[in-house]
C-alpha cells in the first residue's frame, strides 16, 4: 500500500474538510487563470485590431496614443481636424489637380506633387472624418476605398465582406451622396438592415439630429475589429451635413468646379477644398522600409502627427494595461497564497485528530519520514485536484463566454486556449501547497508514538 494511496484515503475520509479546502484552492486558481486569459485576450484583441493593412495613422499635432485610439479603435474624445490639403499631400500633382477640378479650390494645389507623394507608390491614404454618432456608435465619414483597400484578420489578409448589401458609392442617382454601411454590431444592436435610413446625431450620442439621413446599403460581416462598432458613411455626404463645412478663410482662392454650374436645383453642391477637413488619415506607404522616414517627415510638419498603431498599442499595453493586469494578477496570486494558507490551517487543525493514527502507523513500522510524506502527499493531492479543477473551471467559463468574446473582440478562444503563464501556475500551486504542508508534516514527524498510543 503506497504512501500516496494512504494520503488519498485520508483525503477522502475527511471529505467535507478536503472538499472545502480544495474548493478554496480551486477558486483561487480559477481566478488567476481567468485574469491571465483576460490579459491574453485583451493583448491579442488590441494587437490584431491595430493591424488592418495600414501602417501609419496621421492626425493633428497632439497625443499619438489618443490619435491611435481615436482613428483605429474609435475610442477616446474626438480630436481636432486637419485641413483637407494635408490629405492631398499624399498624392501626386495629377491627382491633386483632379481633386481641385472635382471639388473646387486653389488651382495652384494641382501644380505640384504632395510633399509625401514620393513615399506612396503602390500605397494608399484613406481619410476619416469623425464627430457624429448613431446611437452610442461612432459615425465614420470615409471613402469607398476603406472597404476596397483595407483588410482585417490575424494576418491582415481578409477583405471586408458584407452580410447584406454592398459597399457605399461616391455618388449615384438613387441615393446621391448619402449611402452608408453599418458594422455588424451596430446593425444588430440598433435593429437596422439594408433599406433602412440611418440618421446621425452631431457631436455626441445625445446630440442634435442632422435632419439628413443616410440610406443603409450594406451591413458588414463580423470582423472582430472596432469596425463592427462603427457606421460608415460616404465622406461627401458627411461633408454635406449641416455644420460640417469649415468657414472659408478670407484669403482663400477658390475656383468652383464645372459641376457647380451645371448642377440642377436639387443637386447638392460638394464642399470646396478650403471647406473640407479630415480627422485622420490611414496611410500605407508603398515601401514599408520607408515608413519611419515618412513618419519623421510628417512629424516635422507644422500641423500633422503620425503614429504607428502597433507601436502605440504596445506602449499602451506596456505602460498602462500591463501594469494594471500585473496588479490584478498579484492580487489573484495573493488569493492563491491565502488558499494555500487554508490548506495549511485545514491540515494542521486535523493533526490533533490524527496523531493517534500517525502513532498507530509508527507502531506498525512506519518511519518518521513516511508519515511526513503522507501529510505532504495530502497537500499535493489538494494542490493537484484544486489546481486542475480551477484550470478546468476557468476554461469552461472561457469556453462558455467564447461566442461573446469573439463577437466583442474577434478573438477566437477555446477550451484549450491558454497563455504560457498558465504552464507555470500548476507547479507554483503545487509548490505553495507543499510549502503549506510542511508545518503539519513537521508536526507529524514529531508525533511521539508512546504518548499518543497511551492517550
Amino acid at each position, binding site marked *: *500500500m503506497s504512501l500516496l494511496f494512504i494520503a488519498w484515503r485520508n483525503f477522502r475520509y475527511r471529505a467535507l474538510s478536503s472538499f472545502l479546502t480544495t474548493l478554496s484552492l480551486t477558486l483561487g486558481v480559477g481566478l488567476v487563470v481567468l485574469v491571465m486569459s483576460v490579459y491574453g485576450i485583451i493583448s491579442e484583441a488590441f494587437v490584431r485590431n491595430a493591424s488592418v493593412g495600414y501602417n501609419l495613422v496621421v492626425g493633428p499635432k497632439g497625443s499619438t496614443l489618443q490619435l491611435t485610439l481615436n482613428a483605429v479603435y474609435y475610442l477616446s474624445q474626438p480630436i481636432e481636424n486637419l485641413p483637407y490639403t494635408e490629405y492631398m499631400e499624399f498624392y501626386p500633382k495629377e491627382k491633386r489637380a483632379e481633386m481641385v477640378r472635382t471639388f473646387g479650390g486653389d488651382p495652384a494645389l494641382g501644380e505640384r506633387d504632395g510633399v509625401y507623394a514620393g513615399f506612396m507608390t503602390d500605397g494608399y491614404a484613406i481619410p476619416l472624418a469623425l464627430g457624429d454618432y448613431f446611437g452610442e456608435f461612432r459615425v465614420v465619414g470615409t471613402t469607398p476605398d476603406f472597404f476596397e483597400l483595407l483588410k482585417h484578420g490575424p494576418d491582415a489578409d481578409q477583405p471586408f465582406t458584407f452580410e447584406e448589401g454592398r459597399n457605399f458609392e461616391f455618388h449615384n442617382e438613387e441615393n446621391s451622396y448619402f449611402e452608408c454601411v453599418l458594422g455588424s454590431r451596430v446593425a444588430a444592436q440598433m435593429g437596422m438592415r439594408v433599406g433602412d435610413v440611418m440618421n446621425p446625431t452631431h457631436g455626441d450620442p445625445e446630440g442634435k439630429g442632422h435632419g439628413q439621413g443616410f440610406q443603409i446599403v450594406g451591413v458588414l460581416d463580423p470582423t472582430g475589429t472596432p469596425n463592427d462598432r462603427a457606421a460608415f458613411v460616404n465622406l461627401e455626404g458627411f461633408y454635406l451635413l449641416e455644420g460640417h463645412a469649415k468657414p472659408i478663410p478670407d484669403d482663400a482662392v477658390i475656383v468652383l468646379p464645372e459641376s457647380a454650374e451645371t448642377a440642377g436645383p436639387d443637386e447638392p453642391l460638394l464642399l470646396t477644398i478650403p471647406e473640407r477637413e479630415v480627422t485622420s488619415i490611414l496611410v500605407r506607404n508603398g515601401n514599408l522600409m520607408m515608413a519611419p522616414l515618412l513618419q519623421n517627415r510628417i512629424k516635422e510638419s507644422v500641423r500633422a502627427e503620425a503614429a504607428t498603431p502597433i507601436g502605440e498599442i504596445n506602449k499602451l499595453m506596456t505602460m498602462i494595461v500591463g501594469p494594471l493586469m500585473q496588479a490584478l494578477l498579484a492580487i489573484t496570486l495573493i488569493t492563491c497564497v491565502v488558499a494555500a494558507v487554508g490548506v495549511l490551517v485545514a491540515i494542521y487543525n486535523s493533526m490533533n485528530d490524527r496523531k493517534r493514527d500517525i502513532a498507530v502507523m509508527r*507502531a*506498525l*513500522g*512506519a*518511519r*518518521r519520514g*513516511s508519515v511526513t510524506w503522507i501529510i505532504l502527499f495530502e497537500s499535493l493531492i489538494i494542490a493537484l485536484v484544486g489546481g486542475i479543477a480551477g484550470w478546468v473551471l476557468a476554461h469552461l467559463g472561457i469556453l462558455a463566454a467564447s461566442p461573446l468574446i469573439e463577437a466583442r473582440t474577434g478573438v477566437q478562444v477555446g477550451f484549450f486556449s491558454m497563455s504560457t503563464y498558465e504552464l507555470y501556475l500548476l507547479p507554483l500551486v503545487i509548490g505553495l501547497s507543499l510549502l503549506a504542508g510542511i508545518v503539519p508534516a513537521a508536526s507529524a514527524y514529531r508525533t511521539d508514538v*508512546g504518548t499518543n*498510543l497511551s492517550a
Partner: protein
Amino acid sequence: MLAIENLIKRFDQPGGGELTVLDVPQFDIAEGEQVALIGQSGGGKTTLLHLIAGMLTATSGSIRINNLELTRLSEQGRDRFRAGTIGYVFQTFNLLPAFSALENVKLGMSFGNGSVDAARASDLLDRVGLSDRAHYRPNQLSVGQQQRVAIARALAGRPKLLLADEPTANVDPASADTVLNLIIDSCRDENISLLMVTHSMDVAQRFQRCDKLEDINRAFSPLGAGT
C-alpha cells in the same frame, strides 16, 4: 528469542526529578513460547511492551530479540525492526478509520519490506471470521469484530514476536474468548512468540507460562506509578 537484562526506564517528572517505572533485571521468552504478564493497571506493563517494540528507548539495560541488541539501534533501525519482527495488538484496537478492514490488515504489511501480500491479508481476515466484512470501515464493525481485524493486522507482517496489550479488556466476555483463542491459536500455528499483558487472572490462566509484573519489575509500585 527475547532476552532482557537490567532494563531500566525512567521518565522525567513535571516538577523535576525522575520517576523509575521499570527496573527488570532479567526476563526471557523462548521461540514460540506464549507468556502472560499479569499486573495491576499502572504497573508499567504497557511501557515494557513499548520498550520491547522499540517505540520507547530504555534508560539503560539490554533488550535482545533474535540476538539483535535493540537498544543499540537507531530510530530508523528500530522502525525497520518493528515492521519486520513485531506484531502489536492494542487494548483499544487502534484501527485506522479511513481504511476498510482489509486495508487495515494490508497496512500491517505496508511498512515492512514494502510488498503487500493481498492473498495473505484476505486469508487472515477469513481466519478471524470477517471475510464478509472485508470492505467495512471500522465504525461499521462491532468492538469484537474490530479487535479481530486488529489481530489479523498484527499477524499480517509475519512477526516473530506478538505483543498484546490487554486485548480483551474492551470487548464483551463472549468476544473476549474468541479474541483470546484467535491470538493463542494463530501464534501457535505460525510459531510466533507471544507476550500478552493483562490484569485478568482468567486470561492469564489460559497460558502455559504466567509471570507477575511485581516479580520481574523491581520498580513495581502497588500505587501504580507506571503507564
